[in-house]
């Protein structure tokens, strides 16, 4: 399995446009965020890491969607299937691969946020920033890789990932505002926001534990659909 993940990592990082372009985009946004923010200490740490992780999220949407769809779109999937590795394992390896390849981006965000924060911050502030950054990049990387496997085509997979982020946030806001705050909280973007912020305050209508479970169910369902498609498809 380690050899397979290493091979997947090599494939993802080999797509330099999405991998290095993503890192470059995050680096650029971080520079702007650092220069524009006059705060220091814990506030600056949080602000920089938050801006960095949302920039990273957009990059990871592209990387993840490509990781999920590329082999099918490129015609290489049939040769991977012919190696005899079970199809479910090929699918799982993509998810693990995208998690591994987002680590440099997460580290970039965190190092820049910590180095430039100045002032005072404590271990909890750092822990929150680490959790928020990794959970954002991993959740969206995995979800977008799964979307890529479902859609099997690079362009639509990237578009669907971006729409899920922006459109999903919009729909969640509308449901929250006009239909039910609790229902809105159970939608994917609401759960993701609560879990990534580790928030249990009154803005969220369900407990943090319930949010963890809800988010896990959403991710498991999307991943299960994707693996099901990989197992079922003809190549």
């Amino acid at each position, binding site marked *: 399995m380690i050899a397979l993940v290493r091979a997947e990592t090599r*494939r993802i990082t080999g797509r*330099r446009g999405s991998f290095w372009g993503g890192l470059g985009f995050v680096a650029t946004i971080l520079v702007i965020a650092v220069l524009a923010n006059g705060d220091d200490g814990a506030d600056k740490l949080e602000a920089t890491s938050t801006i960095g992780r949302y920039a990273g999220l957009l990059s990871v949407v592209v990387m993840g969607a490509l990781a999920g769809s590329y082999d099918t779109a*490129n015609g290489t999937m049939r*040769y991977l299937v012919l190696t005899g590795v*079970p199809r479910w394992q090929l699918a799982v390896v993509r998810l693990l691969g995208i998690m591994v390849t987002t680590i440099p981006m997460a580290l970039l965000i965190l190092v820049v946020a910590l180095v430039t924060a100045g002032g005072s911050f404590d271990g909890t502030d750092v822990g929150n920033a680490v959790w928020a950054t990794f959970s954002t990049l991993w959740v969206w990387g995995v979800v977008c890789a799964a979307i890529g496997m479902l859609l099997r085509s690079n362009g639509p997979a990237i578009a669907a990932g971006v729409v899920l982020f922006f459109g999903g946030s919009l729909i969640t806001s509308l449901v929250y505002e006009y239909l039910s705050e609790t229902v809105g909280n159970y939608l994917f973007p609401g759960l993701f926001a609560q879990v990534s912020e580790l928030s249990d305050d009154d803005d969220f209508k369900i407990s943090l534990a319930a949010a963890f479970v809800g988010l896990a169910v959403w991710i498991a369902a999307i991943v299960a659909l994707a693996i099901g498609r990989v197992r079922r498809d003809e*190549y």
Partner: protein
Amino acid sequence: MDHVISLRNVTKRFGSNTAVDDVTIDVPSGHCYAWLGPNGCGKTTLIRMMLGLARASSGQIVVRGKQVPSQGREALSRVGAIVEEPRFYPYLSGRANLEIWAAHQSADAKAAIGGALDRVGLSSRAGDKVGSYSLGMRQRLGVARALLNDPELLVLDEPTNGLDPAGLQEFRGMIRELVAEGRSVFISSHILSEVEKMADSIAIIEKGKVLASGPVEDLIRGGRQAVGVRVDDPGRGLPVLRGLPFAREVRETDVPGAYEVLVEELADDQLLATGRELFAAGIGVLELRPVRETLERRFLELTGDHAGELARAELGDVPPADDAPTGGTDR
């Protein structure tokens, strides 16, 4: 005789379209077997089913003694393949691509990379990105990938596409070497002359159906064989030719005074006897030759006009009709 592939009544339907229609064939081990037919006749669809990439609508597929797809992993553990066209990661080098595939196989596969690249003549370009390779080079890299798991069976779908004449000759030699090593090779192709030179046995397919199969020599022998003769006096020559004891039929050709005396199985004695009878009757013989069908003529005869158009187009004679009906899809 052991069979490396056995297909029994294999059918594949896409909606109301039958791409592969009740195919039954046995591919002997240690042979080069060719699956020959015009584009769109179901060749790739059959290969995809054999390799577990697509499901058959009905029928039984056995590869290396194991059922596909239910025992696909065991069946395909020593099978190398090129399906439709060799696809790689264009942004990685040829060697890096093979390393990725070897990572999905075994340590032995990784150790085999250098030898496989040498064998296909790509060692000097192995460090270049695949995106810079020609189609012929990608075909060769595809063969190298197929060799990584020391295959007992190689399944190669249109493997000579994109090869230049020198590459074709090398490729033929490589296939014969692989067969001499005891491996089985299953090739699909629409290039008749290539198949004739490489394969021991063939199946001719059109619209998803097998029209004929067997050793190449037998298939050619099943076609028209005749004594070709041109005489200076057709009026007197024709009765003499019709009177030959081995003549099944005498056909006039487009050339004045030229005939074909159809026989069951052509032999030198029949040529000599034809000349002798004509000389004895005082008829001048301007030309006397054996007529044996090539595989190409046999193929066209079996597959009819549509396949003939395609085959001639591939030979550069006429363009194929874009809306030509096909029995299935190769996609």
